[in-house]
């Protein structure tokens, strides 16, 4: 049932400017024309606007304003990312659900997305503010077979490049704070939390958790965050259709991931450095002690490359950086 509906949405969305005849749909899906008609009624119920013209066929003219698995998959042009998609109106955290599903063998590319998270998670269980319907909060389950666990951390930079390109496409110039936070004018726009389950030489699964601030107004954020975070709407003045933003980001995540797996980190590194926030500036860095160093780029494996006052370079894999 569900997969027929997904296919139906796909077929119609590929021909959004023309009509697709009931006969052609029925052939392609291998179901009767009356079954097609039933599906159309179901789609209308969840908010699709469907035009049906005698002798011509069907056409989708509008997608639901509410997010649903259907609206998120309608118009999604990816090959594997989001083909299996679970939408929740409210959930504790898409990461928690991701762990559960991954342990139950959910396939590579599964997306868990929620309108609202009651326990949105940040790094080290810091809370991530995920306000109802104003942003995109989702987790992607990844099962790379050819990637070694020790190289998996490069995925966090891969995801950041995909996010930057998405925002640029939507008209906003943004920067990446090493390794993977996306900033606009010094305010945080997205956060990524990546978790891995792996053995010494094999990755079981990776959860790429992404939070994107899209349609929030400044007053939607808790007071203590207002001077630190921002949203696409605050930055551009325009509200965005969340499903559309999801399609854009999903497509780029898939593209960058495929490039990374096929060609390695080098093409990603070049793109990452083009968008690096505060490149060639002096920063305060804390590992065990705090010190000042110049941020000169990233190493071949994504590590932060810094330079001291004598020009001596060090690569860091893990550090608190005060930007």
């Amino acid at each position: 049932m569900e997969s027929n509906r997904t296919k139906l949405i796909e077929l119609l969305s590929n021909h959004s400017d023309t009509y697709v005849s009931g006969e052609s749909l029925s052939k392609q899906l291998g179901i009767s024309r009356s079954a097609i008609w039933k599906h159309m009624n179901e789609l209308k119920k969840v908010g699709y606007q469907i035009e049906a013209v005698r002798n011509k066929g069907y056409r989708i003219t509008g997608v639901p304003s509410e997010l649903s698995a259907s609206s998120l998959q309608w118009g999604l042009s990816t090959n594997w990312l989001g083909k299996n998609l679970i939408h929740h109106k409210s959930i504790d955290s898409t990461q928690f659900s991701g762990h559960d599903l991954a342990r139950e063998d959910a396939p590579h590319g599964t997306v868990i997305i929620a309108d609202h998270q009651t326990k949105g998670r940040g790094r080290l269980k810091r809370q991530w503010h995920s306000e109802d319907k104003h942003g995109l909060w989702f987790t992607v389950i990844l099962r790379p077979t050819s990637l070694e666990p020790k190289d998996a951390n490069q995925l966090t930079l891969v995801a950041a490049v995909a996010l930057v390109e998405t925002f640029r496409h939507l008209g906003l110039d943004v920067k990446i704070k090493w390794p993977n936070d996306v900033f606009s004018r010094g305010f945080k726009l997205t956060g990524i939390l990546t978790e891995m389950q792996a053995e010494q030489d094999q990755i079981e699964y990776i959860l790429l958790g992404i939070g994107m601030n899209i349609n929030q107004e400044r007053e939607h954020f808790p007071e203590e965050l207002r001077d630190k975070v921002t949203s696409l709407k605050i930055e551009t003045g325009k509200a965005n259709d969340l499903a559309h933003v999801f399609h854009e980001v999903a497509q780029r995540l898939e593209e960058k991931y495929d490039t990374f797996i096929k060609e390695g980190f080098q093409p990603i590194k070049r793109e990452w450095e083009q968008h690096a926030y505060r490149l060639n500036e002096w920063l305060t860095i804390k590992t065990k002690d705090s010190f000042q160093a110049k941020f000169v780029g990233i190493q071949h494996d994504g590590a932060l490359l810094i330079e001291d006052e004598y020009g001596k370079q060090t690569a860091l894999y893990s550090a608190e950086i005060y930007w």
Partner: protein
Amino acid sequence: MLKVQEIRELIKLIDESSITEFKYETDNAEVHLKKGTGEAPAAPTAQPSVVQPTEQSAPASTSEKPEAASQPEKTAEKPAEKQEEAVDTPTDYDHEITSPMVGTFYASPSPDEDPYVKTGDRVEGNSVVCIVEAMKLFNEIEAEVNGEIVEILVEDGELVEYGQPLFRIKKA
């Protein structure tokens, strides 16, 4: 500068080899290892002020013992806070959990929570024992075997290397 763990590895390797003496020097540190001959251990050669007390780790215990004559001698110049050191002895463990990547070792899920495991805890194959983080990728490390944690080799917040032992387990 050599890490405690690297010194441990060195001692182990030297102990198994025919090398009797080993010296390593960088700008600010010097490590001098000398193997006992079965007689009285040779006296440390570095300046007295920087001689490290030699401590021997016993199974599930941190108590110091007099050094056995057959143990390798070790002298290391290290910062004062790095006093914790152990000569590799056949402690009672049969499994080591090693780090799958370079990163920061976290003993607990978040700074204000209890550590995942303590020495003496029983663990199962899928028990999470720590997190190693690098470049914001958080890797929950599982015990992989059933048994008891007999030694925790790193501290919360410490940087760890690829393949570095983190825990020792006595299998059940």
